[in-house]
């Protein structure tokens, strides 16, 4: 078997460029995905006892609508492959815009489409993590908070939030790693992330072993960094 270290050295700059892009898409994706996920996760249980007590008056129908919208979003994303979501956003969505409006030259950059796809995709799974953790907060703690006379917002911010967040960390770590690896699928819309860089170099020099080994190690390093940062956060939080 011939294994040329020089092949790796030569392809390293391009691969690092790809890794950098992978990292950027991932970070933007999970930050946006967290925002999306917290909103949709809380949305799915809006107006239920998991967030204090059931609302009165006009807030009751509003909360039902919010629940349906959130559930629709989560189920749509979970029920379709991420690769289809990316293709839809990149190829189909601009056509849809063109058909519905008069905007002729509507286009989404491949990178933008990639980031948005990860945000919405991760958001749906994070929503389920958020919902599960919030629902698992012991009801007695909510009653203890409410009986002190605090508002629903304070209850969510200072009691439900911190307790639920502690439980979210392990599944979040899982989802962050999945999202990072999902960026490799954006090869289909031509984003120059790590997998695509590997593919292109491969196509020119046919050194599969060196290239895919290096690519794999780069992914492994990035996922390890993600996992370790989450473990760090987990350790820093009080044990209870």
């Amino acid at each position, binding site marked *: 078997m011939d294994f040329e270290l020089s092949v790796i050295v030569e392809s390293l700059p391009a691969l690092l460029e790809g890794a950098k892009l992978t990292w950027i898409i991932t970070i933007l994706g999970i930050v946006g995905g967290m925002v999306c996920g917290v909103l949709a996760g809380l949305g799915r249980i809006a107006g239920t006892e998991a967030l204090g007590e059931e609302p*009165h008056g006009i807030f009751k129908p509003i909360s039902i609508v919010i629940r349906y919208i959130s559930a629709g979003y989560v189920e749509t994303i979970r029920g379709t492959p991420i690769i289809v979501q990316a293709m839809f956003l990149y190829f189909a969505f601009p056509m849809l815009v063109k058909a519905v409006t008069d905007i002729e030259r509507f286009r989404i950059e491949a990178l933008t489409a990639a980031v948005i796809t990860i945000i919405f995709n991760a958001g749906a799974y994070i929503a389920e993590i958020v919902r599960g953790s919030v629902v698992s907060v012991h009801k007695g703690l909510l*009653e203890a908070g409410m009986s*002190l006379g605090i508002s629903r917002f304070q209850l969510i911010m*200072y009691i439900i939030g*911190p*307790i639920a967040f502690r439980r979210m960390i392990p599944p979040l770590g899982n989802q962050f790693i999945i999202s990072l690896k999902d960026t490799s699928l954006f090869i289909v819309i031509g984003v120059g992330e790590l997998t695509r860089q590997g593919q292109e170099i491969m196509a020119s020099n046919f050194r599969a072993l060196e290239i895919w080994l290096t690519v794999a190690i780069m992914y492994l390093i990035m996922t390890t960094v993600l996992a370790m940062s989450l473990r760090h956060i987990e350790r820093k939080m*009080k044990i209870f």
Partner: protein
Amino acid sequence: MSNIIELKNVCKSFGNTEVLHNIDLSIQEGEVVVIIGPSGSGKSTLIRCINCLELISSGEVVVNSISIPSEKGKIRQVRLEVGMVFQQFNLFPHLTAVENVAFGPRKARKMNKSKAAEIAKNLLNKVGLAEFENKLPGQLSGGQQQRVAIARALAVNPKVLLFDEPTSALDPEMIGEVLDVMKSIAKDSGMTMVVVTHEMGFAAQVGDRLIFMDDGRIVEEGKPGEVMKNPQSERLKDFLSHVKHH
């Protein structure tokens, strides 16, 4: 003296089952009312209606001149005046003892941090836990946790304290320390207290009134000594023969 709590013809149903039937009850400011009764008789439901953890199905609850359900928007004001101590303590697990106690003054009463901490430390001192202020609930015994929970309820400076079987989850040797704290609150502060408990010694010693509930109704009430000595109904006689005397 005026009535701080009034329940007028209160009914409460869960689904199709009515668990409180036409309850009328007036409690004066400073009164210590002890509620006893068999499991499932509606004791918890009754006191949870006072701080609106349960919303009544019909009738009226008036607490500190606020009428529920007609003034539903003022539920938080009711709760500011009505503290509650739970059987399972329900301390916030992510906060230390002193943070648990300071939480109410900080968030519900909007006090500044140092003022709230000062109040919390004083109260922890009062319940004999000064040296445990930086412990998390998980690091405290049941009795200690319940004393922190009592301090937490007191910290918002309520007019009424509700206790739902505060010693039932405790090992026998820790019951005394919690009852002692409750006795001193009753004696020193003139706090209005509604206590669901099976501790008949406590009822006799500090209770102004004893209420016996059965099947969602108030069956008997009166001075604790008299009610215990001369139970009128068969059900109370039967019940008293089953509870331990401390």
